[in-house]
């Protein structure tokens, strides 16, 4: 399985500010995914990030609110822009395995609290 790290692990932010979350993988992967897990809820896919192309967003998520970068095959960032308390969630990135298999492995998540 891929080893995935995320920074920061948690943060407390003020309303109206932005936070960029980093996701680093220990091997080159084609697909990276960003999920949101609201308090006590399940995971919902925000977007899929392929290296060298624009991210593909799911219904209900827009690039202006959640801009994503994918500068190379081991790294991606998700920015949560103009935050409100409703953005308080755990944000997780995931990737396929080293061999490009179908399984997805997750980073440890970033717990975001917006005041």
């Amino acid at each position: 399985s891929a080893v995935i790290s995320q920074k920061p692990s948690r943060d407390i932010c003020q309303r109206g500010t932005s936070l960029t979350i980093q996701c680093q993988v220990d091997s080159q992967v084609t697909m990276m995914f960003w999920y949101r897990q609201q308090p006590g809820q399940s995971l919902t896919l925000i977007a899929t990030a392929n290296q060298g192309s624009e991210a593909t967003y799911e219904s209900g998520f827009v690039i202006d609110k959640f801009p994503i970068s994918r500068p190379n095959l081991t790294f991606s960032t998700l920015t949560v822009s103009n935050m409100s308390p409703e953005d308080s969630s755990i944000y997780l990135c995931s990737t396929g395995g080293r061999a490009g298999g179908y399984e997805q492995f997750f980073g440890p998540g970033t717990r975001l609290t917006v005041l």
Partner: protein
Amino acid sequence: AQTVTQSQPEMSVQEAETVTLSCTYDTSENNYYLFWYKQPPSRQMILVIRQEAYKQQNATENRFSVNFQKAAKSFSLKISDSQLGDTAMYFCAFMPFNTGTASKLTFGTGTRLQVTL
């Protein structure tokens, strides 16, 4: 669009006993993958077991096994010899086939499992 349903919000099992978590899904796809993930309080999502829809044989991973009923669109998880470390939230997830590579996961609402002494 696919949906995944976990009808048991919470379950409890005594240590060393066996417990089964239910999951049903709805899809028009014929080829897909199913997963069970575990999320302990540390919030790390851990892949427990996976099943390819084209395989009739049920997947097993040590104490974890599944009962995959494709016609019924059912995918239950059995945990044998439950251990305290199995206490976690368990999510069932569906992924459509995409040339064998990773793609969008659709998750169920989760079942919170408590293992007691």
